[in-house]
């Protein structure tokens, strides 16, 4: 706001502060501002507010919740969603934080390794997921072929067993998104001044000390925001489950996002589908509130 310090001509300064600073917006400028925000406001109203409102209305029928609770697939989908969020998100972020330390090392090898390591992020999700799905086929897949070639035993039925199938979905999620979060943490680590580590080393702090007393406290805020964001995104993740296990075997690996789509489109009951999705709100709302609060504290920006 200190415009006067940069505008040297005192005769100009008051004009500037009157026309640009003090009065919010006047005359034609106001019209221009209105015209400039209209596209976004239109998009927001037509494609966010309206669908959200319509979705709430669709999911406001108590009867569909009764129907939902009577459906034996629903409780298992809730449990799967919770396991998926807790295991996949935390495993992925913990690994990403540790791996970002490896890529902080100097030298051509680590730089080359990083280029290869981010491939899963650069390759579109659907081809990778289809490949993982076929790779895990118990009869003809690469993994079980390799197990047979190495040990002459039959590999486990990855996608035909409920627990293994959920594990496979978690594996695919971690594989696909680990590079993205590693790069985020890498940027976070690069922002930490090197002198902190150097002086700690002089004082005799080991690698673990340095991690727990410098890296983690300084990246804590970022780590929390990433956990919240990643949980929200994973809650809405449709593709991993759809393409790895397809919700099978026998509907045992559905999560709320895929079950909602199934109920709405495969069973042709949009109200039931919306009720399925909305049952995630008690989890989603606290996450969003925490995230907004954390972002407002200003330590971490998106």
């Amino acid at each position, binding site marked *: 706001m200190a*415009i006067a310090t940069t*505008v040297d001509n005192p005769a100009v300064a008051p004009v*500037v502060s009157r026309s640009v600073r003090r009065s919010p*917006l006047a005359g034609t400028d106001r019209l*221009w501002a209105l015209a*400039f*925000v209209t*596209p*976004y*406001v239109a*998009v927001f109203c*037509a*494609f*966010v507010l*309206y*669908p*959200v409102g*319509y979705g709430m209305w*669709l999911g406001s029928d108590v009867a569909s919740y009764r129907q939902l609770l009577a459906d034996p697939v629903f409780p298992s989908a809730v449990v799967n969603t919770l396991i998926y969020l807790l295991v996949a998100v935390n495993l992925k972020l913990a690994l990403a934080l540790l791996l970002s330390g490896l890529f902080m*090392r100097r030298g051509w*090898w680590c730089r080359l*390794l990083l280029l*290869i*390591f981010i*491939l*899963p992020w650069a*390759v*579109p*999700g*659907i*081809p*990778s997921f*289809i*490949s*993982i799905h*076929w790779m895990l086929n118990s009869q*003809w897949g*690469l993994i079980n*072929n*390799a197990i047979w*070639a190495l040990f002459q035993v039959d590999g486990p039925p990855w996608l035909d067993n409920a627990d293994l199938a959920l594990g496979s979905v978690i594996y695919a999620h971690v594989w696909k998104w680990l590079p993205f979060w590693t*790069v*985020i943490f890498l*940027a*976070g680590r690069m922002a*930490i001044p090197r002198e902190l580590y150097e002086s700690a080393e002089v004082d005799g702090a080991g690698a673990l000390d340095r991690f727990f007393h410098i890296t983690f406290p300084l990246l804590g805020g*970022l780590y929390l925001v990433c956990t919240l964001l990643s949980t*929200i995104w994973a*809650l809405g993740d449709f593709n991993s489950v759809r*393409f790895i296990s*397809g919700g099978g075997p026998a509907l045992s690996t559905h999560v709320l996002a895929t079950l909602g*789509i199934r109920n*709405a489109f495969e069973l042709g009951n*949009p109200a039931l589908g919306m009720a399925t999705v909305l049952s995630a709100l008690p989890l989603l709302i606290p996450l969003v509130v925490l995230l*907004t609060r954390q*972002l407002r504290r*200003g330590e*971490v*920006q*998106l």
Partner: protein
Amino acid sequence: MSVASRARLDRRLTELGIGLLSAVLLIWTLVPLYNMVRVALQGKEDVFSSNVFPTAPTLDSFATAIDESYWLLENFWGQMGNSLYIGLTVAFLTLAIGTLTSFTISRMRIRRGWMLTNAALLTYAIPMSFLAIPFYSIMGKYGLTDNPIAVIAVEVTFATPYAIFIFKQYGASIPLELDDAARIDGASPPQIFFRIYLPLMAPALVAIGTYALLLSWNEYLYAFLLLSSDGHITVPVGLGKFLNSDEAPWNYLMAAAIIYALPPMAIYYAFRRKMNSGLTMGGVKG
């Protein structure tokens, strides 16, 4: 043991550890990708075999995909065209709407700018798939069933909030005095927008344009729900159709998937630095 040899031993152990970790990471990263290439190089009978390495590698599957000479690949290039058309339109609209909005919020300082920022934050916090059901009905009401415009609308909606955040952040580094000086010279808001703001925002535009293009190139769920006719579907939807067919031409599927994956990979690696700086811009402040 002397201090020097002790230090040397430590360094050796560290190097060994890094070597092992690198090997594990390489295998972890490359196995699903290797599988994609392996299956694409297999012949039709080879797909159902128990080998780990292709016995008689052939490029037939790629030829089939390129010639569209298999019924599920009939319109492969048409689908690539649809994906490209939707991706470019989404990138353009995201850039246009995102820059106009962030310009108004942070450079024209409208009074209720925070409402727009909160609207963007709200959109950002809604998982995209959760709106699929109402969106499908609403697109029916708008008369946009099986119309690429419907998919473009969703993707612009979900790409714009992130664009606004990044533009606001990046724009903060452009001195406001530039605008003021232009104003004194009599420039109107559109002139400031086009002559000063946009040129100085170029790096952020590249990052967000790439982001929006890749987001829509990779998107599956909405394209799957909103597009139905063969002439309109995008590549991921076409690939998904393979899984529903009784035959399992995995080699063709993987060859088509690789062709589809190459352009975004090339873009990604070409713009990697700009993308990364955009994505992680100000990851940690202070």
